[in-house]
């Protein structure tokens, strides 16, 4: 459905240096599929998500939706955004503190003049009598998001809701437009542990009931394991490994994925990577992971690691990995991990 091809996004950093936040990414989200995009902080996950929604313009590469490339004219974007919706990490921040739940959910339909057929109501003019069924629209979105009975929430302000409820309101706001794809950027990161499960269940349910596709951006591998069909691991602006969740998370191929999984508390041995998180303004030559790669650090790396860049992984469902060592010396990898 939604596909990114050779996507790059650069930012002008300080002192003229350019930060390549997204540096060649191929990624697709199929119909009814939940894809998890995982990676550490600053690797470009959010930038990728925003670019997919047209909120950021790619420096190169393109985004296609249902096969048609995304156009950046105001009208095209607006139409596109009826289909693809965004849910952000911070549900409190995503709601205007001066809007009630009702207004927050109705905002999308009003922008898109929904329901439009039988009324001439001017979008954005709150005072003009809105169509009778706007309320129905809002109510149905709220109940689909699990806020029942919806009328009870209409007049609440965000600060009168709990974190989980707020996130549901945000999701309801997206659902009110009947989108096909939902991009969720760390949807539960700021929620309490006990509440997050509920939101994740909601996403799964929406996928099952409405056939919604979703791209879930997260740094939490457990979350990916919880809900994703497919996982893409991102490192420094590139996807370094992708494939079905079971494959990637139980049998990681890339040393980076391996390290990530190893630091989970329950994992038997830890591979704690040294060094600071990478800087997108100074992308290393060769394999971009090589300065921190535990294999290279142990002297098990290939000479190509520091010199030869790796090809960009194609978008696709099959397991893929971008590593010079992948498949070459698996035994060495696992033994050195201990």
């Amino acid at each position, binding site marked *: 459905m939604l596909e990114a091809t050779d996507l790059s996004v650069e930012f002008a950093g300080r002192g003229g240096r350019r930060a390549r936040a997204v540096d060649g990414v191929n990624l697709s989200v199929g119909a009814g599929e939940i894809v998890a995009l995982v990676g*550490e*902080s600053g690797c470009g996950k959010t930038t990728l998500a925003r670019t997919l929604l047209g909120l950021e313009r790619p420096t190169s590469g393109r985004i296609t939706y249902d096969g048609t490339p995304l156009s950046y004219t105001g009208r095209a974007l607006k139409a596109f955004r009826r289909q693809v919706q965004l849910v952000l990490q911070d549900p409190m921040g995503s709601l205007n503190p001066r809007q009630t739940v009702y207004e927050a959910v109705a905002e999308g339909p009003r922008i898109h003049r929904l329901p439009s057929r039988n009324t001439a109501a001017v979008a954005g003019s709150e005072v003009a009598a809105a169509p009778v069924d706007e309320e129905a629209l809002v109510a149905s979105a709220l109940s689909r998001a699990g806020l029942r009975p919806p009328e009870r929430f209409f007049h609440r302000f965000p600060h009168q809701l*709990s*974190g*989980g*409820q707020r996130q549901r309101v945000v999701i309801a706001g997206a659902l009110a437009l009947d989108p096909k794809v939902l991009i969720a950027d760390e949807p539960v990161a700021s929620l*309490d*542990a*006990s*509440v*997050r*499960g*509920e*939101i*994740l*269940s909601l996403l*799964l349910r929406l996928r099952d009931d409405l056939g919604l596709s979703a791209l879930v951006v997260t*740094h939490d*591998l*457990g*979350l990916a*394991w*919880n*809900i994703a069909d497919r996982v893409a691991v991102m490192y420094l602006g590139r996807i370094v490994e992708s494939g079905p*969740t*079971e494959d990637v*998370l*139980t049998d990681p191929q890339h040393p980076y994925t391996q*390290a*990530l*999984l190893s*630091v*989970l*508390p*329950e994992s038997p041995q*830890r591979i*704690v*990577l*040294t060094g*600071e*998180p990478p800087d997108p303004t100074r992308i290393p030559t060769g394999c971009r992971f090589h300065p921190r790669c535990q294999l290279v650090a142990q002297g098990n790396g290939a000479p190509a690691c520091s010199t030869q860049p790796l090809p960009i992984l194609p978008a696709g469902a099959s397991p893929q990995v971008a590593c010079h060592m992948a498949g070459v010396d698996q035994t060495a990898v696992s033994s050195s991990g201990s």
Partner: protein
Amino acid sequence: MLTLEELSVTYRIGDTRAGRAADDVPAVRGVSLELAAGEALGLAGESGSGKSSVALALLRLLPRSAVVGGRVLLDGEDVLTMKWGRLRAVRWSSASIVFQGAQHGLNPVRRIGDQIAEPLLVHRLASGAAAEARVRELLEQVGLPAWRARSYPHELSGGQRQRVMIAMALACSPQLIIADEPTTALDLMVQAQVLTLIRQLIADHGISLLMISHDLSVLADMCDRLAVMYAGRLVEVGPSAGKFRHPYSQALAAAFPTVGDPASRLAPRGLAGDPPDPQELPGGCAFHPRCPVALESCASTDVPLRVSGDRAAACVLVGE
């Protein structure tokens, strides 16, 4: 070495002068805990359950709007009734704190070396060159080059800053370190680095640790014993190994799935309902509205911690 007896913290908000009734927020409601020397205790619980309030109460750092009850015995001395002068002497030299937000816990306009040395100077443990040497030593202990002493906080990454906070906490060689969510804001990999460091340091120096987090799996990994809070109360205390007994603890544990565990695959679990509002706590067991196994009696009777084996839980279902 640290004993909490029926510790309670109530925040008074609202303007009493304006004639409005003061709204009280009972953030901590009778917490009793004991921490032996050299022991690592984890305190878990979701947001707003009163974890930080407990931590701040230990050194009487709460704002003036907070009313503290009960006793906090630190080496047998009650912190809550100490003279201010004595209290200042105890602070940091007996117990130090590593706060959650490392970026805010450091003063942005002062060099980190000065900030690390400050407790040394305040407590007259070292001065001048000796303090400088100690700062260098501390920085090396937490794996930072000594020249970093001249850096400002913003020049450091989050992980480094948290290391500085840890170095600072170690400055006066306290017997107890309180770590309030020391890794929450950090990245996965950095979090692992910091936890490894803490684990190693307390082991090396034989320091007691009170670590606060909402992530049960992290605590289980770090601590000998775990305490779980809900709505200002302890609901469960016990060794970190072994299964939880209280339904809330269980739910909390289930919220962090084990990767590779087929049971949690495509089956996220959590608790229905909302976390309680400390100002409007439900009667009876505060957890009963969300409890998947609640009995009718739960709505009316509050259950104190019940000991069962090596752990204690506040639930009727946990037998004597």
